[in-house]
């Protein structure tokens, strides 16, 4: 690996100062499972790596009156072991747990998956569907930002050079609410999404959808929130007419690339299919609680 320096600050102001005052490129690291691969291959050449894992509150999951606060560097393995989170947000957890191998799950984090800014990041559509927000800190203070406003293009985020995410917030769930995430890969494990779909719904006692969010991954330069797809579900039970509208809205939101893992036509069709299937799982889970 090329030369760089490493710092693991113990306080947030210290971390912000290091990022703000770095002469060259400084990279924020949580689990490091993307960053260290890019560093080793020479795709990124940071002069400084700021490891966030010693900051207070950056790991661990806290249940609050408003929902859940997930530390930005909390590992996928820890997320999967949090029974309360699995119960409330099964789609977010299944998406986070799809990232990489068991080994990668031991380190990989939500903040890293988001800020690596891959269009195919699995946890991102699920978090967008869940109305997750990020707590961002920087020299100008602290702000809360919806997840969908962080990534602005492949490998690019809206964060300033001295800003980083310290936690994610997932709202509390009403009754009859659940989410689901599905991805298509040509094998069963250890691959990158060709298409991903996250759906979150709230139903009334009769099973009619009163609130929905649908987000897609790997079909555009960033994960996309698809309001028309959500609108297709709201006011309906899980009937074929609603699903057909959802399917069409999901396909209409696709602006995918053509590559070895999927053609434009294939990704577009699969986006509609996965949106339907994820909606069916979310409805079933929501109806069961």
């Amino acid at each position, binding site marked *: 690996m090329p*030369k760089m320096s490493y710092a693991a600050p113990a306080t947030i102001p210290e971390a912000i100062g290091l990022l703000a005052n770095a002469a060259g490129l400084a990279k924020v690291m949580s689990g490091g499972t993307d960053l260290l691969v890019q560093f080793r291959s020479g795709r990124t050449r940071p002069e400084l*790596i700021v490891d966030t894992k010693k900051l207070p509150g950056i790991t661990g999951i806290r249940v609050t009156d408003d929902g859940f606060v997930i530390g930005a560097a909390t590992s996928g*393995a820890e997320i999967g072991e949090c029974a309360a989170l699995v119960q409330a947000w099964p789609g977010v957890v299944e998406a986070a747990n799809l990232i990489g191998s*068991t*080994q990668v799950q*031991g*380190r990989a984090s939500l903040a890293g998956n988001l800020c690596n800014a891959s269009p195919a990041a699995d946890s991102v559509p699920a978090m967008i569907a869940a109305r997750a927000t990020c707590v961002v800190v920087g020299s100008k203070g602290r702000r809360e930002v919806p997840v969908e406003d962080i990534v602005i293009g492949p490998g690019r985020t809206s964060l300033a050079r001295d800003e980083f995410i310290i936690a994610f917030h997932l709202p509390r769930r009403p009754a009859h609410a659940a989410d689901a995430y599905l991805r298509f890969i040509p094998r069963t494990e250890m691959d990158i999404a060709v298409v991903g779909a996250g759906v979150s719904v709230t139903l009334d006692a009769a099973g009619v959808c009163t609130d929905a969010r649908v987000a897609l991954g790997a079909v555009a330069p960033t994960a996309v929130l698809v309001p028309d797809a959500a609108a297709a579900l709201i006011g309906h039970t899980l009937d074929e007419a609603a699903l057909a509208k959802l399917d069409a809205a999901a396909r209409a939101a696709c602006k995918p690339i053509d590559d070895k893992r999927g053609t434009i036509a294939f990704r577009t069709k699969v986006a509609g299919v996965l949106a339907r299937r994820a909606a069916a799982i979310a409805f079933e889970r929501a109806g069961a609680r």
Partner: protein
Amino acid sequence: MSKHHVTTTVNGEPAEFLCEPHHSLLDALRDELKLTGSKEGCGSGDCGACSVIVDGRLVCSCLMLAVEADGHAIETIEGLAQGEVLHPLQRKFLEHAALQCGFCTPGLLVAAKALLDRNPDPTETEARYWLAGNLCRCTGYDKVIRAVLDAAAEMRGE
């Protein structure tokens, strides 16, 4: 670019080493602590040959900086056998011929130990998914899975 002094525990014993900030934990284990059981296959977290357990979590030691190990407990393949007595997983790998070239074996054994530490009675499907991040180009995996399930059964006293 000064060196970092890292204090850690490796296989239950206190260990310390000096490392450059860009060194991986795998580099430090092999080159500083001379624990060459952990292998570098890909260096990008895809093959699992460098698997170690850090604070009870299975990780790729190539995807962790050596300096990040400071204050943490590391288990490597060298800690699996108790002196001359092989761990049941090691014995079963031999009995089932679950290796040919052996390059992936340390990583597979460490990953399998991490599995049995948390799930003493895995199904075949659970074992296959857990070990999906450990690539083996010789065995075709069947013998590996049989060895892991057989070791698990023996460790449960069956």
